[in-house]
């Protein structure tokens, strides 16, 4: 019913993939067309040293989305079973997980990333992913915990228990599948946040060394705001389109859990 919500994200990723496959690496330079405005040859214009912005933005978007998807999926695979399992176990484990979620969610991700990356000589994508995963699991665990608290009292869970299902089986077959709605929304939100954080880190100079990132496009755009404003607008538009489309896509699976 709400499958149309996947359309923006599919369009962003699909278009980026098509362009990225057709164009050479985004480091392909034509010095004579540096900072050129959009034209037939370069639909989004050119940036620093004549790099084609369409190719650059496509490659950067794909890499950002890949990182975001990896972080989101790992966060979900760690957080959701942890939260739902804690809700089924009740007692001390439940309280410990809830407390840990509170603690981790109060840590500002961006500042944490700055602190950790400042200790690394040349950050790579793996470093970035690890830093984001440090906190990414917590919202999933918290949501699954809340859903698990409701579901553990549901009659079908009671029935499964009465029929002799182990706690792990109840968790895997009856509880986790019913948390998919809320968890998917969080997946979209997490992916969007990672795209923005990655771009922000690259923008302030903490990104992957020499890497292709939407933050790098914004950085070029700010430097050339006066002579070539299109670079800035392209960068900002790409960050906006990627993050909001991911956020919307997360709500595609969101059936009766829709927020009102």
């Amino acid at each position, binding site marked *: 019913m709400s499958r149309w919500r996947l359309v923006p994200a599919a369009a962003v990723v699909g278009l980026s993939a098509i362009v990225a496959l057709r164009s050479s690496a985004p480091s392909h330079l034509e010095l004579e067309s540096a900072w050129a405005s959009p034209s037939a040859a370069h639909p989004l214009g050119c940036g620093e040293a004549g790099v084609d912005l369409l190719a650059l933005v496509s490659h950067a978007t794909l890499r950002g989305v890949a990182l975001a998807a990896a972080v989101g999926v790992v966060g979900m695979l760690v957080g959701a079973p942890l939260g739902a399992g804690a809700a089924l176990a009740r007692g001390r484990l439940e309280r410990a997980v809830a407390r840990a979620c509170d603690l981790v969610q109060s840590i500002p991700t961006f500042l944490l990333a700055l602190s950790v990356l400042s200790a690394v000589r040349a950050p790579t994508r793996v470093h970035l992913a690890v830093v984001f995963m440090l906190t990414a699991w917590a919202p999933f665990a918290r949501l699954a915990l809340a859903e698990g608290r409701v579901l553990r009292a549901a009659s079908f869970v009671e029935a499964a228990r009465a029929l002799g299902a182990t706690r792990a089986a109840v968790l895997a077959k009856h509880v986790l599948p019913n948390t998919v709605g809320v968890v998917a929304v969080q997946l979209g939100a997490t992916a969007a946040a990672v795209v923005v954080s990655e771009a922000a880190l690259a*923008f302030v100079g903490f990104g992957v060394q020499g890497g292709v990132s939407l933050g790098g496009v914004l950085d070029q755009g700010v430097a050339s705001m006066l002579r070539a404003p299109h670079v*800035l607008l392209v960068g900002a538009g790409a960050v906006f389109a990627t993050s909001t489309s991911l956020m919307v896509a997360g709500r595609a699976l969101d059936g009766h859990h829709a927020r009102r």
Partner: protein
Amino acid sequence: MGQPSREGTARPLAQIARTFAGRLFEGLVVVWLLATLVFFAMRLLPGDPAALVLGDQATEADLAALRSRLGLDAPIHVQYAHFLRGLVTLDLGESLRRPGTTAAARVGLALGPTAALAGVAVVLGAMLGVGGAILGAGPWLGRRRAWVDRVATALAATPLLALAPVVTFVLVIRLRVIPLPGDPEAGAAGLLFASALLSLPLAAQVARIGRAALAEVAKAQYLTVAKAKGGSDGRVYWLHALPAASGPILTVVGTQLGALLGGAVVLERLFDRPGLGTLILDAYASRDLPVLQAAVIASGALFVLAQQVASASHAAIDPRARGAKGAA
């Protein structure tokens, strides 16, 4: 979150003192944890910090000299004890790139502008957001008030990273109403503009959550009583409904503080403003480890302080959050 009290008859002053001490202790523990994380990250991650500072061409003698200057040649527990002593006495070493200046002094200079930027942004964001929430919940706009929620939701979904450069471009280059980024004469106008930008995401969140909280409160009986007494709509919403809705609003402000400080780093970079963010980026680029370490810890401490202030003001405004009486 409020501190649940086990004694229902606690004297107010003693209780406030205990709550304050508890908050202070909690904050100190968080700062200590962060400082420890930073300390060990800088020493235990692969890569020799001395080589990081001096580059690949450094001779072994230079590296050894720097290691002993930074105290890196001592065993790790000795280093940690020294680090903790420095943390308490605010002596975190000397800047490597500006000899004669202590790291604490550079951080102190940078703390002011960032605190001003973030502080003004929090105040602006709270005011804008509360105004929006009351407009969205109250009767003044009629059917059009649904737009408050729509605008706030759209604004909350827009990353500051995309919004700030575009708004800056329009106002600075097209309309020329704002001084250029990095303009030393920007002064108060520059601060106000940067803070206003930084406050937008916060204002949007406060407006959304505040509107929902006010709509919930509006069903309560005491609001009907307030209306029946002949209070104007403004009086009813500002004096009676708003304090009751302050819990969710302050909680939102608290949860947004981290994002706000992150946004401050981005805006300092965008506008070329001096501050903690700029200092962290400079120290990182020039491998000035003592300054980097001190600046990262200071930004964490600033965040913890701001968060504790948010939860303390929640307790001051909403009696239910104080425990004791509200527990009933």
